[in-house]
């Protein structure tokens, strides 16, 4: 909402406050000022400015009101004129190319002089000939043989609008010689209107708030008295079919008006408020809407008569019929349905109620008789229609937030006044007013104790009543209870407890949040409740970070196509259930992800062009729809990804080593040890994303934690990896959380020396390292405290299909020093077991 200061000042005296102070008041009562545009006024002096200023200040000496006495032709140019001008000090001749002065050329001294905004040499203003706002200094120049050093300004040059088609012709009563900034210097507040404060999307609303907080008088404008009589009812009939959707509908009428330009001050204000001036009639409805907050609509009465074909024109508000079409003022033709409220006549819809007028009945430059509508509409219904038709509409924006029906009357009276004043014409006696469903303005009670127990501030009932009264509430104080009746300007105050909360906000807002004390919570701490997931999730992050991995945060939104890239054939599975987004932001974000792997591979792909070595992880949910349930299961996944070299090569690196399966496995082993998961084991596994020979699943006991491996070469082809190989793991983080232990028994340390010896056994190729190691442990018993595989060897000497596995074994007892004999016993046990189970042959000792 753009609010020019000069307009607000129509209703409240603010001369002793500067722009900064006013903006501060507004912001601190909930009308946040997002920016201030200076349109003439100087930037105020302040120790600290809390707002962003833009725009132009008009120097008092350089910009004045002047009058053009005579317009003379230019000796050398048709498209330029010379103006004899009085700037209050002297008479000068000024050069200008403004087309709107041509008509006065050669008329001799003007009977009625033209008041203009005059800029002297050295004035800083916007260059009218350049796009946008380019600040420039007015310099002496010779144009077509005539010296020029000052100018008559256009709106663009003064920063009022981007209009540069002619110079500004001020209203006739503008005082010559007065500094322009005193006559019409302004500042425009760009105010963000909160959804519950639509009543303040109006100049009167803003002034009312300022009056309440600064304890000043609010001067409400007087419209014309409601015209009495029955002349109007003989010109048009009115029927409201659904009071629920249309609580009030008023009609007034002005005849023999002229669609002439509005006074300049009106045009200027509309421009500053962000609306284009059109003519007196349109301007009057827009001006009144900005002033009161009530959108109005004007019908061309003659068009209605034509449609009625000789009968009395009728206005009927009703819901549309299925299939009815309506061409709106913006030129679009909208299909209507039975939920949409329209203003119609006997022929068909005239306008989309509360949203936009129709093309066939609105006023135009030819209009002579205006039928003026001021109504109120059901805000939910308006919202539904807006969301169906998606039409940008100022009226719709307002009505969809709730406009009190009482405003219709105020706005009608003011708008009729403006139309008569700016467009001439004659008032038709009488109004039609179908006020079928007046709202019950809530009456809310409050006690001092209630105020203190919710706000924590010692605000007396008298002070509360005072604040509410200034906001328009009707207050009575009796027996320690405040009773406040909501004024008929707003619909945001609730009933009962909700009403109390609403009033509490009004009181606190105007009292000032900064005056409410700060207290520390005095209530006792609630009983502790822990979120073990969160704690463990953070522990998982810490362990992985300590292992050198980079944490990432990934998007949840993806597409089935993106996720299918992790499959060798990229085939979309039509049966795969996704949480599908109805209004996706783009074709590559149509569903909630199911796969952490797909996310990770994309992250690796993106980053592989930047680093030859990558190690990343991500923790986040995947979304798995569950049959028969409304909401998906949000399963927490941990994905780890590695690519490229084991280390980033430096000057010392002779040969850069690539990562392999065992880098990832080693990392997972260290990680899972960090979580103290019980009975971790690894098994060969199959997964479409991974190389069939380089893929494993990791288990804790019987439960599968997840799968990992090196990418399947066909999957790898779907991505542009610049660092290879690519290894990835996807683990069930919920399970990790559930199985991880923060309490466990430590391993005691022995004070007796350990014995270390190496053995190597030749076994068939198919014997897995895990099986072998398990058998060694089994046979070794308690005294075998460590088994470390240090060599795997294959060679001709061993024979085809054989391998040699060399282990370093550590024996240690807790109660004595082991002897060579003890060691031999254990070793023999192990060797015999391996012979028995795997046909192993001892290779060396």
């Amino acid at each position, binding site marked *: 909402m753009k609010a020019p200061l000069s307009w607000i000042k129509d209703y409240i005296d603010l001369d002793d406050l500067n722009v900064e102070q006013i903006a501060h008041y507004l912001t601190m009562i909930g009308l946040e000022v997002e920016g201030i545009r200076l349109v003439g006024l100087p930037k105020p002096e302040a120790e600290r400015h809390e707002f962003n200023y833009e725009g132009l200040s008009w120097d008092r000496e350089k910009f004045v009101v002047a009058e053009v006495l005579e317009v003379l032709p230019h000796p050398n140019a048709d498209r330029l004129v010379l103006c004899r001008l009085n700037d209050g000090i002297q008479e000068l001749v000024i050069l200008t190319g403004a087309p709107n002065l041509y008509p006065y050329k050669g008329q001799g001294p003007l009977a009625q002089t033209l008041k203009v905004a005059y800029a002297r040499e050295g004035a800083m203003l916007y260059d009218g000939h350049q796009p946008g706002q380019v600040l420039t200094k007015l310099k002496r120049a010779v144009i077509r043989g005539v010296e020029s050093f000052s100018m008559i300004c256009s709106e663009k040059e003064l920063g009022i609008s981007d209009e540069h088609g002619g110079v500004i012709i001020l209203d006739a009563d503008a005082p010559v010689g007065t500094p322009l900034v005193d006559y019409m210097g302004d500042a425009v507040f760009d105010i963000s209107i909160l959804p519950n404060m639509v009543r303040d999307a109006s100049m009167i609303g803003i002034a009312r708030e300022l009056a309440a907080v600064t304890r000043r008088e609010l001067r409400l404008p007087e419209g014309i008295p409601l015209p009495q009589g029955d002349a109007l009812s003989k010109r048009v009939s009115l029927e409201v079919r659904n009071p629920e959707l249309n609580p009030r509908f008023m009609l007034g009428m002005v005849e023999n008006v002229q669609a002439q330009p509005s006074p300049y001050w009106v045009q200027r204000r509309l421009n500053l408020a962000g609306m284009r001036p059109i003519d007196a009639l349109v301007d009057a409805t827009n001006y009144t809407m900005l002033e009161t907050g009530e959108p109005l609509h004007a019908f061309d009465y003659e068009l209605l008569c034509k449609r009625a074909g000789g009968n009395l024109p009728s206005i009927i508000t009703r819901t549309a019929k299925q299939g009815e079409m309506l061409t709106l003022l913006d030129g679009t033709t909208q299909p209507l349905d039975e939920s949409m409220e329209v203003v119609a006549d006997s022929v068909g819809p005239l306008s989309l109620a509360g949203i936009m007028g129709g093309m066939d009945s609105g006023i135009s430059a030819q209009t002579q008789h205006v039928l003026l509508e001021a109504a109120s509409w059901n805000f939910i219904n308006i919202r539904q229609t807006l969301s169906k038709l998606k039409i940008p509409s100022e009226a719709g924006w307002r009505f969809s937030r709730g406009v009190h029906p009482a405003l219709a009357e105020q706005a009608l009276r003011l708008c009729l006044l403006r139309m008569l004043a700016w467009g001439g014409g004659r008032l038709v006696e009488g109004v039609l007013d179908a006020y079928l469903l007046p709202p019950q303005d809530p009456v809310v009670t409050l006690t001092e104790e209630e105020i203190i127990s919710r706000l924590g501030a010692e605000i007396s009932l008298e002070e509360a009543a005072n604040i509410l009264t200034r906001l328009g509430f009707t207050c009575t104080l009796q027996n320690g209870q405040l009773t406040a009746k909501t004024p008929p300007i707003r619909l945001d105050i609730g009933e009962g407890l909700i009403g109390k909360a609403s009033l509490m906000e009004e009181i606190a807002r105007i009292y000032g949040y900064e005056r409410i004390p700060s207290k520390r919570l005095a209530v006792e701490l609630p009983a502790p409740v822990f979120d073990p997931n969160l704690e463990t999730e953070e522990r998982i992050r810490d362990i992985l970070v300590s292992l050198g991995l980079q944490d990432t945060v990934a998007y949840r939104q993806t597409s089935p196509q993106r996720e299918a890239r992790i499959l060798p054939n990229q085939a979309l599975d039509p049966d795969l259930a996704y949480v599908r987004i109805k209004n996706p932001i783009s074709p590559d974000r149509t569903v909630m992800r199911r796969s952490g792997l797909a996310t990770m591979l994309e992250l690796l792909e993106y980053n592989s062009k930047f680093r030859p070595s990558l190690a990343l992880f991500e923790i986040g949910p995947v979304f798995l729809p569950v049959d028969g349930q409304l*909401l998906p299961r*949000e399963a927490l996944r941990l994905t780890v990804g590695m690519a490229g070299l084991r280390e980033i090569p430096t000057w010392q690196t002779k040969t850069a080593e690539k990562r392999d399966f065992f880098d990832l496995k080693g990392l997972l082993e260290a990680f899972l040890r960090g979580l103290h998961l019980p009975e971790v084991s690894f098994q060969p596994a199959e997964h479409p994303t991974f190389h069939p020979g380089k893929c494993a699943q990791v288990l804790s006991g019987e439960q599968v934690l997840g799968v990992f491996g090196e990418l399947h070469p066909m999957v790898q082809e779907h991505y542009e990896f610049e660092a290879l190989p690519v290894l990835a793991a996807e683990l069930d983080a919920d399970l990790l959380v559930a199985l991880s232990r923060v309490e466990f028994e430590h391993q005691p340390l022995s004070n007796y020396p350990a014995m270390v010896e190496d053995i190597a056994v030749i076994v068939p190729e198919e014997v897995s390292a895990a099986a072998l190691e398990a058998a060694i442990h089994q046979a070794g018993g308690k005294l075998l405290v460590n088994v470390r595989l240090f060599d795997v060897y294959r060679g001709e000497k061993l024979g085809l299909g054989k391998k040699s596995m060399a282990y370093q074994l550590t024996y240690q007892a807790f109660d004595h020093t082991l002897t060579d004999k003890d060691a031999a016993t254990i070793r023999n046990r192990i060797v015999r077991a391996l012979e028995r189970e795997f046909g192993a042959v001892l290779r060396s000792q």
Partner: protein
Amino acid sequence: MTDRETQLENEKKEALAALDDIRTTEGLETWRIAHLGKSSPVMQAFSDLGKLPVEERPLVGRAANTVKQALESAYAVKSEQLRQAELERTLTRERIDVTLPGRAVQRGRLHPLNQTLREVCQIFRDMGFQIYRSPEVETDDFNFTYLNMPPYHPARDMWDTFYTDKDGVLLRTHTSPGQIHIMRERAPEHIRAILPGTTMRYEQLTARSEIEFIQVEVLVVGKGITFADMKGTLTDFAARAFGKDARTRLRPSYFPFTEPSAEMDVECFVCGGEGCNVCKGTGWLEILGCGMVHPTVLEYGGYDPQEFSGFAAGMGIDRSTLMRYRVDDIRHFRNNDIRFLEQF
């Protein structure tokens, strides 16, 4: 002076002179064998003592001893000199260019958003708050209706929402639905909790706007909780997060699920309030929205609003991280560009 004594004196002079010229440990060893070895003149003098006349023996013996001691101590000095020289040479030889880069160690890091989130959680934990989480895919009821936004409530416009193909199911636009979940779990116990999590809004993806971001919701429910309690708690939070001298202010705002509602600004930590690009010239940075829990929300949560009151607040982790590091493009956070992440 006997001949023997003179010979010994000469031997000493010669030996010491020879020692002077020695530069290597090998040379020194040869010298030692020649002048202090078994067959050296000095040692020879000792073994020849018996052959001398009795009266000469003490004189020659003493002389031999003196020479031997002199040579031995000269040897020791020389030996130490050579060792030092050798060490010097070795150390010089082993000198490296310490300005060469060190071996690369890959350090793991938390994502900057998770860093900020952790800090915020830690501050609230220190203040006695518990942590509670709830789903990211939500029902319309939890996301809107129970938060005092029945269908077609104007405030629904405040959040551009992603809907799913299931009726009444959407991607939560804020962490506030968690308020209802935790209230329904805890009622009528009182609550002092924070609710962190990812939320999603239908926005165009630009340098300034994201479709996914992390929020932290604060919720206190109990008997006699006041606006002043909210102000004090959030001021405390700001002091812990932004420094004890950080100035804050509350100004009125609107959220459908709180009333009265407020927005908290902290003095811009970039310019100190002077006005800059980050604070758009205002000297203030908006850090959170807050308010007293709306009676309707309390009721939906299972608390009697006559008896209970509370406050709630919500803050964006992405936005505050963005401001803190003056990140010029919010999309950096979820692009996970390693060149970006490595800076934190």
